[in-house]
C-alpha cells in the first residue's frame, strides 16, 4: 500500500518530530527519552499525573490526547507495539508532582508487561505511587465470563477523558483510579472491519477480506475478529454492534450515556454520521438519553477501513467528567 513516508523504520521518530514541531505550545519531548512526551506547561502542583500510551498507528490516540483536561504524558511505542518501560518511566518521573500517577492503557500482553515493569521501577527507583487502569472495552475480544481478558480499543478515549478530568478537578490518586475504573467498567465497544491496513515495514495487508465481506469484532491491530460475513447496510451493521453491546451491558430506560462512533482510518465522516444516526435511533427508541456524542476518527488502525461504536453509561459523576473541557493538539472540547 502506498504511503507518504520516508524510511519505513523511522516513521514513528519522524511523526513525533513533526508532532512536537506542530504543537510546541502543547507538547514537548523529554530529553531523557525521545519516546516520552509531556505537556509543554508543567503539570500543576498537587495534581495527579495522568499517563497514557501504547503502540503507534492509532493516532489521534495516544499522542493526540496530551493536554489540559486529558493526559499529562504519553509513552509512544513502535507501530502496534507497546512502548518499553524506559519512556513510560521517564514520563512518569516528569509528570509526578508527589501526588502519584495513573496509567491508563489497553489490556494487551505487551502493554501489561511494559507498563507493569515501569510502575515497579517508578516505585523502586523514585518512590512514585502508580495506579493503573487497564482498558477492556472490546466486547468481541473475550466472553463476558472472562471480561478481564478483553482488549482495550476506542473506549480508551472515555477512560482517558474521565481520568484526565478527575485529575484536573483535583481528585487524589485513589479517586482518579476509582472513577477511571468505573468509566472502564461502564464502557463497551464493538467494531467492524472492512479493509486492511499495512505496516510500513512489510507493506502487506494485515488481513484479507473479499470485496463483499466485513468482519465483526476485528481487533484494533487487525487481529482477526469473531465473525466474517457478507457486508451489510450500515443500519444492520449498527444494529448488530449496538445489540452486542447492550446484551453485554444492559442499560435501563432513562439512563444517560456517552456515544463514540469511531472511524478506524479510511472510513469517512459521512459513513460515521450515517452510523451515528442509527445508534441514536436505537437508543432513543429504548429511552436511553445520549448525553454527549463523539463522531470521528478518535482511535485508528493506520488506514484500516471500518468503524466501532462505543457506549459509556454515565452517572452524575461521570457525566460531569465527560463534559469537562479539554485542550489537546488532536482533541479540543469547550
Amino acid at each position, binding site marked *: 500500500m502506498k504511503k507518504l513516508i520516508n524510511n519505513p523504520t523511522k516513521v514513528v521518530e519522524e511523526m513525533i518530530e513533526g508532532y512536537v514541531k506542530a504543537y510546541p505550545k502543547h507538547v514537548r519531548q523529554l530529553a531523557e527519552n525521545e519516546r516520552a512526551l509531556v505537556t509543554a506547561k508543567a503539570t500543576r502542583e498537587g495534581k495527579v499525573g495522568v499517563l497514557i500510551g501504547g503502540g503507534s498507528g492509532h493516532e489521534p490516540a495516544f499522542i493526540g490526547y496530551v493536554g489540559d483536561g486529558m493526559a499529562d504524558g504519553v509513552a509512544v511505542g513502535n507501530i502496534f507495539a507497546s512502548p518499553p518501560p524506559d519512556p513510560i518511566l521517564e514520563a512518569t518521573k516528569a509528570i509526578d508532582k508527589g501526588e502519584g500517577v495513573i496509567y491508563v492503557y489497553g489490556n494487551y500482553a505487551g502493554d501489561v508487561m511494559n507498563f507493569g515493569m515501569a510502575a515497579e521501577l517508578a516505585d523502586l527507583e523514585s518512590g512514585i505511587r502508580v495506579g493503573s487502569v487497564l482498558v477492556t472495552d472490546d466486547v468481541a475480544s473475550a466472553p463476558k465470563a472472562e471480561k478481564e481478558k478483553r482488549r482495550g480499543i476506542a473506549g480508551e478515549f472515555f477512560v482517558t477523558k474521565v481520568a484526565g478530568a478527575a485529575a484536573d478537578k483535583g481528585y487524589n490518586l485513589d479517586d482518579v483510579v476509582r472513577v477511571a475504573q468505573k468509566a472502564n467498567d461502564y464502557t463497551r465497544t464493538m467494531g467492524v472491519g472492512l479493509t486492511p491496513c499495512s505496516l510500513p515495514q512489510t507493506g502487506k495487508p494485515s488481513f484479507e477480506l473479499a470485496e463483499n465481506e466485513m468482519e465483526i469484532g476485528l481487533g484494533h491491530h487487525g487481529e*482477526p475478529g469473531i465473525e466474517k460475513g457478507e457486508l451489510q447496510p450500515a443500519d444492520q451493521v449498527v444494529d448488530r454492534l449496538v445489540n452486542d453491546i447492550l446484551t453485554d451491558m444492559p442499560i435501563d430506560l432513562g439512563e444517560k450515556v456517552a456515544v463514540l462512533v469511531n472511524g478506524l482510518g479510511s472510513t469517512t465522516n459521512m459513513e460515521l454520521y450515517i452510523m451515528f444516526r442509527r445508534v441514536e435511533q436505537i437508543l432513543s427508541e429504548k429511552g436511553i438519553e445520549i448525553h454527549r456524542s463523539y463522531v470521528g476518527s478518535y482511535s485508528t488502525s493506520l488506514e484500516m477501513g471500518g468503524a466501532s461504536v462505543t457506549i459509556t453509561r454515565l452517572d452524575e459523576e461521570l457525566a460531569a467528567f465527560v463534559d469537562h473541557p479539554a485542550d489537546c493538539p488532536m482533541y479540543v472540547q469547550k
Partner: protein
Amino acid sequence: MKVTAEELKTFLKNVVTMIEEQKDYLCELDRKLGDGDHGVTMSIGWQAVNEKLDGDLKEEVDCGKISILTGRTFLSAVGSSVGPLYATGFMRGAKAFQGKSELKDEDLKDFWVAFIEGIKERGKAEVGDKTMIDTLQPALESLQADFEKSNNFLSAFESAVQAAEKGMESTKDMLSKRGRSSRLGERSLGTTDPGAASAFMILNTFLATIKSVQVA
C-alpha cells in the same frame, strides 16, 4: 565445552542475521494470529542489539554484561510483548555469566534455565496457551533432565532443541489463549504461534553456533 565471550557475541550476531531472514515468515504467522508485527519487532530489537555489538560491546569480555546489555537494548528498542519476555530472559540468564569471559557447560545450562524461567515468570503463560512457552518449557525440562544425567551441555542442548521444535509444532493444533489472538477460537488452529517459532529459532541458532565453534 567452552564458549568464549567472542563466541557468545557470534551467537548474538547469528541471531541478528537469522531474524532478518525469518522476518517475513514471522510477520506472516502473526498476521494470521495477531497484529502481524512479530518479525518487524524482532528485527527492530535485534538490529539495536547489533548496533551495541558493534559499539559498546565491541571490547566487552564479561559475558554477564554482554547478556544484560543485550536484554536491555532489546527491550528499549521494542517494548511490545516480546521485549519484556526476551529481555527478562537475557537479564536473568546474565547472572550465570556474571564476571565470566569463558563459559563452561554448567554456566551455559544455568543461563538457559534462568532464561526460560525468567520468561515464564514475566509472561505467566502456561503450556497449551499457544505462546513461546510451548517451545520453551519442553526445552527447559529436556535440558535439565539430560544435563543432570550427562553433565554435557552440548548433547543436552541438542535434545532440548529437539524438544523445543516439537513444542513449537504443537502450537499449530492449539487454540490461542494469551495475547492478541486469544479470541480467535477455531480460526487460530493450523498456524504456528509466531513467538513459539522465534523462540525455537533462537535456541536453534545457539545450538548451530556452539556446534560450529566446536568444530572450528
